[in-house]
């Protein structure tokens, strides 16, 4: 088992290197640091000197890959690739283009993101599984058909509608909770209710339909027929046999997104003015802060790969049929 986990982790290393190279190419080769400086300082009317100053301030004044002017190991280390890209592996994120420490900002902004993402995941999971189970219980009746149609309709509505509509209805018309904002500690709760509610509602359509399909596949299997044949009631069949087995794909499907919860949701956070990592990314895109976007791309990939490794491990834990190959 430990050898398996180690091997999975080793597989992740070349992928991380690949991601790092892609971000390097995207951010430094497609457009040179000169282009970025010009973009930041305003087009055309920028002198060479101003560009040089900007590059020196932000550490972009080194050569890209090989520093011919330096001695020994410094020919490789005193370059943009080493200073900006390789250091990401040590989780040394450096400074943003506006001069703030990115690592510190991420550490601060992670918590509001989690405060929304975790409740959305847990509440959503509970509701989606219950509804899907209900539909499977009433399978091939009008309730089932109506439920599926409703799911398709819910899926077809833009996520923007849920947010705008929710803010308008609950925040403005009913005045139940503040429309947007955030607070520290327990006072944040009243700001979190609406984003969590909207997050759950906007996910219902697609998830319930997926879970219903998974459950239906399970319902038609032989062991379920056996369970019924030996006289178990429908409720017992559902909860003790179908649910337990169908939860395997559901849970392993969730493990992959667990690490990504840190990254927060771009839309929800920017709409509700929550100072999480999602709105951090949006702000960086709006201000064209390349350093932050680069770090977020790398961080997102690391978390996703972590999710993949965790998924593989969780498969072996919950399903004894999976061999460690």
């Amino acid at each position, binding site marked *: 088992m430990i050898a398996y986990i180690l091997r999975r982790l080793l597989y992740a290393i*070349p*992928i991380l290197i*690949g*991601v790092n190279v*892609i*971000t390097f190419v*995207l*951010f430094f080769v*497609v*457009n040179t640091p000169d*282009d*970025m400086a*010009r*973009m930041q300082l305003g*087009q055309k009317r920028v002198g060479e000197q101003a560009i040089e100053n900007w590059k020196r301030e932000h550490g972009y004044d080194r050569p890209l890959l090989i520093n011919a002017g330096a001695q020994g190991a410094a020919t490789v280390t005193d370059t943009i690739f080493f200073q900006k890209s390789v250091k990401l592996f040590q989780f040394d994120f450096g400074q943003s283009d506006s001069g703030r420490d990115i690592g510190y900002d991420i550490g601060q902004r992670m918590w509001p993101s989690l405060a929304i993402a975790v409740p959305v995941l847990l509440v959503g999971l509970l509701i989606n599984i219950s509804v899907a189970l209900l539909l499977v219980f009433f399978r091939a009746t009008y309730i089932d058909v109506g439920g599926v149609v409703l799911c*398709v*309709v819910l*899926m*077809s*509505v*833009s*996520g*923007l*509608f849920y947010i*705008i509509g929710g*803010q*308008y209805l609950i925040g*403005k018309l009913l005045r139940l909770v503040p429309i947007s904002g955030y607070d520290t500690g327990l006072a944040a709760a009243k700001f979190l209710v609406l984003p969590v509610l909207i997050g759950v509602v906007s996910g219902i359509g697609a998830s319930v339909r997926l879970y219903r399909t998974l459950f239906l596949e399970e319902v*038609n299997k032989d062991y379920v027929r056996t369970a019924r044949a030996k006289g178990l009631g429908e409720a017992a069949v559902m909860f003790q046999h179908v649910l337990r087995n169908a939860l395997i794909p559901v849970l392993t499907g969730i493990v992959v997104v667990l690490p*990504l919860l840190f*990254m927060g949701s*771009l*839309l929800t956070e*920017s709409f509700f003015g929550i100072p999480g990592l999602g709105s951090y*990314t*949006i702000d960086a*895109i*709006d201000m*064209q802060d*390349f350093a932050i*976007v*680069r770090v*977020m*791309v790398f961080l*997102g*990939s690391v978390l*996703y*790969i972590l999710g*993949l490794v965790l998924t593989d491990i969780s498969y072996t834990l919950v399903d004894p049929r999976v061999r460690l190959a």
Partner: protein
Amino acid sequence: MPVPVLLATDALFFTLFLLLLVFVAIARRREHLRAPWRAVARSRLAVAATVVLGSYGVIGLLDSLHFHPPLDVAAHRPGQSHSTEVLSLFDVLVGPLRTQKEKTYSAPLATHLYTKESVEGPEGVTRVHPRLRHGGAHLSDPERDWAGDVASRVGKGLALAALIWSVILGLAAWRRGRRTREPVPRAALGLLRGEGPQPSHILFLTLAAVLSIGCVTAWLAAGYHVLGTDKVGQDVLYQALKSIRTGLVIGTLTTLVMLPAAVLLGVMAGYFRGWVDDLIQYLYTTLSSIPGVLLIAAAILMMQVYVANHEEAFASITERADLRLLFLCVILGVTSWTSLCRLLRGEALKLRELDYVQAAQAFGVGHFTVLRRHVLPNVLHIVLITVVLDFSALVLAEAVLSYVNIGVDPTTESWGNMINGARLELAREPVVWWSLAAALGFMFLLVLAANLLADVVRDALDPRLRAAR
């Protein structure tokens, strides 16, 4: 003379349309290709959804025929016979919608502005809602004439719709009558009752709905702003209709541009195994491990830097916006092709062990002939299912991306840009709702139709699911 312009997305859009026609022509003559589509045509939901998608498609195609309009003779300058502006055939058809601008917000079908203005009258300065420049300008007394005029326009629209509908029904009945040797009225009745294998009654019911809405809107739009005007006085209906092309381009071209790479790599990985498989798997795992939104954000950001530094490379604003649209398609494709590639690899892994592939290899048939003749046709249904299933997700994604400013160019009409422009309008007192409602409504209808069709197509094409029934 108008000078035709072929934008990059136009070319690809028409290529796709041609491919579709070629596929239909080929599939008509092969029973095994026809059978699943016959099942699709027998589904009531699919027929209704196809009619709706078809009407979107017609508008999208009309909006893709671009040209430089000729200049007025009065403004004629030597050596330049056409303006640099790029219009589409659709713009010409709905002419007044594009040009008739108001000052600012006006409600749907309104005759007066939504905001009050100070007007100097005989009794000094008063605050009133001024009359619109174009909406209902033909009415002498709006309070008295408005309801009657709207009703008469609705009536005329419905009459026109009924006329077109009857002509279509008549033609269809005549064709059916020739085949079944029935008199035309009897055949028409049969079509409306849905006798026969296809649900023709649903077809004509949906057609009636679409035609009525279309004709009534057209008739009303000649005199009013049917969905009101936005902040700068542009007609909301026109924006929503123009956005159709953007939505369709994103939904279809994204999959199309990455399709060759995804199919080739996926099939090769599964068929050849070994180091080819390892390499291709590494490639798509690496690309897919970057979260999609962030990759798009980074790429669009870099695109903006490139455009800002190379302004001279683009002939016109329209062309620049169009290239950005195409670039968005490509980058969306990069983030979404990996799942298709993985599916195809799995299927090819299975296929290479099957007897007929083994037999072909034993006969000494070359690898690429085996791939082309025996593997590719048998993974085609997966490709089709993916194309259809991805469509609605991509249309929704465009709105979200444009909202976050990493989507289409701000000058391109799209539902995302409409929502982005209207983001603060619900906070106004009184509320301005029509821009948001129009964008979300048009998007919802398209996505719903696509989702419904996708379900039916998947059920019809996936033999595994068919066996489970």
